[in-house]
């Protein structure tokens, strides 16, 4: 019973990870858009990447993946580290890229 419950929870967690809408990474060193172009180039170089948003204001790099593809936290963290930045956290959220862009626009309008 406990094993079944554990497996169910594990499967639910994995399913959510795979189907999560957006991967949001908090990044240190994001102060120059000219230099940060490399982040977008690096992430779009992964075949799994569908969309990328970079916010210097929030220190945020967010991306969505193409359907039925997976990119691990380690892969993403390595990609940004090798782009010259420091990743402080990675979360997978249900927010869409459009929602994030809208919120960022709202921040800039303030």
């Amino acid at each position, binding site marked *: 019973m406990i094993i079944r419950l554990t497996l169910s929870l594990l499967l639910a967690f994995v399913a959510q990870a795979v189907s999560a809408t957006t991967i949001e990474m908090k*990044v*240190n*060193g994001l*102060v*120059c*858009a*000219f*230099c*940060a*172009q*490399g*982040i977008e*180039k*690096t992430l779009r*170089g992964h075949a799994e990447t569908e969309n990328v*948003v*970079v*916010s*210097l*204001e929030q*220190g945020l790099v967010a991306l969505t993946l193409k359907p039925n593809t997976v990119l691990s936290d380690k892969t993403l963290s390595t990609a940004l580290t*090798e*782009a*010259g*930045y*420091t990743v402080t956290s990675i979360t997978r959220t249900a927010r869409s890229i459009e929602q994030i862009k809208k919120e*960022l626009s709202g921040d*800039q309008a303030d």
Partner: protein
Amino acid sequence: MPSISILKLALVAVLGQLATETVSAKPIAFANGTTLMGEYGGGSMFEAQAFYAPRYFYSVGASALRLENEQAARDSAYLRVNWLLKRWNLPKAQGNVFVYGGLGNAREVQSVGLATSAGLQADFETRRVYYSARIDLNHAFGRTLAIDTLQAGWAPYAHDFDDIATFFVLQARTYRGEIQGQPLYRGVEYAALLRLFKGRTWLEVGVTQDRKPQAMLMVNF
């Protein structure tokens, strides 16, 4: 030893377009990036460069440099390596220390010979301020020419990723060394610059206290 004209021709052929080493931006753009830069400085220097960065912490490329006073000029062409010695990534700031060096050829009047270059740059920036200090050394014919540059910049607004970034920059520069017995420049050269960048293009234009123009263009691919 190949002549300076052949080296320049090779440089142009390989680069295909203007390349620059900016005295004000970082000598390494981003990993797997190619940078082309050109800078004209107050009638005393002109530099064009192209670099490729296989990793974020180093780039390799070529550079053509002219340093001149009212009497004569030294033209140099180098193959060069830039290295990010140290970076500090903070939540709202970044600091860097770069070193670089090159080997090539120089011509001064009728003399042609081996030339070496070396330099060091330290910078600190946020989205509102930029500070940098840089030393560029060029050695040929037993004499070293040096350019020391300090910059302080301020942005009227904090740019974001898709914005046009704007900085007002004050620059102080000294030129040490002589060509044909005459200094490159006497005293401190001050310049007021407007820096704009968006996407992969960076433009800097301004004027020195001698009313001479200064400009720099850099593009990343």
